[in-house]
């Protein structure tokens, strides 16, 4: 299995960045999650984005839907503290086993507040 760290699809995430900027402009707290590494069969490539606002609204994705819920919870925390975080999900991670990357890969996600 080859890492698919190809950025070719980034333009697809234009709407995530635009939405994140729009939320900020509307005075909302916003966090941005970015896939920074993948191993095995992860559904979304490195550079994929998910943005979350303070009300839990989301745009974009960092997986096929398996870990979005967990990432949103962490994003809420990052919005409060302002400190960025690197999250790891995968078959070797017990928490991840619970939230489940059904595809059997592992990914690292960087979560930061937009301020």
């Amino acid at each position, binding site marked *: 299995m*080859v*890492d*698919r*760290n*190809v*950025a*070719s*699809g*980034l*333009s*697809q995430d*234009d709407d995530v*960045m*635009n939405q*994140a*900027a729009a939320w*900020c402009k509307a005075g909302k707290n916003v966090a*941005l999650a*970015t896939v*920074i*590494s993948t191993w095995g069969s992860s559904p979304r*490539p*490195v*550079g994929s984005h998910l943005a979350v606002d303070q009300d839990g609204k989301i745009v974009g994705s960092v997986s096929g839907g398996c870990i979005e819920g967990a990432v949103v919870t962490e994003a809420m925390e990052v919005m409060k503290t302002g*400190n*960025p975080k*690197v999250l790891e999900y995968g078959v070797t991670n017990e928490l991840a086993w619970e939230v489940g990357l059904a595809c059997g890969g592992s990914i*690292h996600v*960087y979560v*930061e*507040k*937009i*301020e």
Partner: protein
Amino acid sequence: MKQHTLSQLIKDQNEKKAVALATDIDIGLQTLVYDNTAIGPDENNEEIQQIARQAMRDDRCKIYEIGGRRIFIEVFNPSLRMLIVGAVHIAQPLSRMASVAGYDVTVIDPRASFATDERFPGITLNGEWPDDGMRDLDPDRRTAIVTLTHDPKLDDPGIEVALKSDAFYIGALGSRKTHAARVERLTAAGFSETEIARIHAPVGLSIGSVSPAEIAVSILAQVTDVLHRKADTEAIV
């Protein structure tokens, strides 16, 4: 991420300007790196900039260990491009599907009755002769080229410019027989066997496509295959 960094990224994307975002993932410092300049806390860090610029050329996002720090380099290159020669029936679904897949699509056809906004809503049309149109659009290694007119008078000039470019994919519609004749013409025009071998013909993956939309699927699938396999091969080297 600072709000102004986000706004700058969006502005650069809209202006089709290549930029890389270098993030220290332990402390969150972020620097924007361009071809000739950089803005942010690491704007004087030559090593980060060098690695970021190489990542932009490779179209690759990755975490690097730089000076004992973990730096995530995220590349924001302009969209991939697809240049289609021939505003024919297949070009209609292909241009739409490729747009959805993230390509910046231009259809080149000097025949005004084919290349109309009614037939290609929202797609950029170029009414030049294919060689002139292709030269103006200056295909690079992030460009796919597909010729669909089935008319050597239009396809060949486009293919000749394509073969001199770094386009990552060149595909030409036409049966094996049509392609054999094309190979003869290109050979006579001075192209080598290796150069001509870059052309995918008959165009598209063999999936039994019948309708124009199905043929468009097979073409887009092949373009995708070439794009990612090429990247994977480069990753191994």
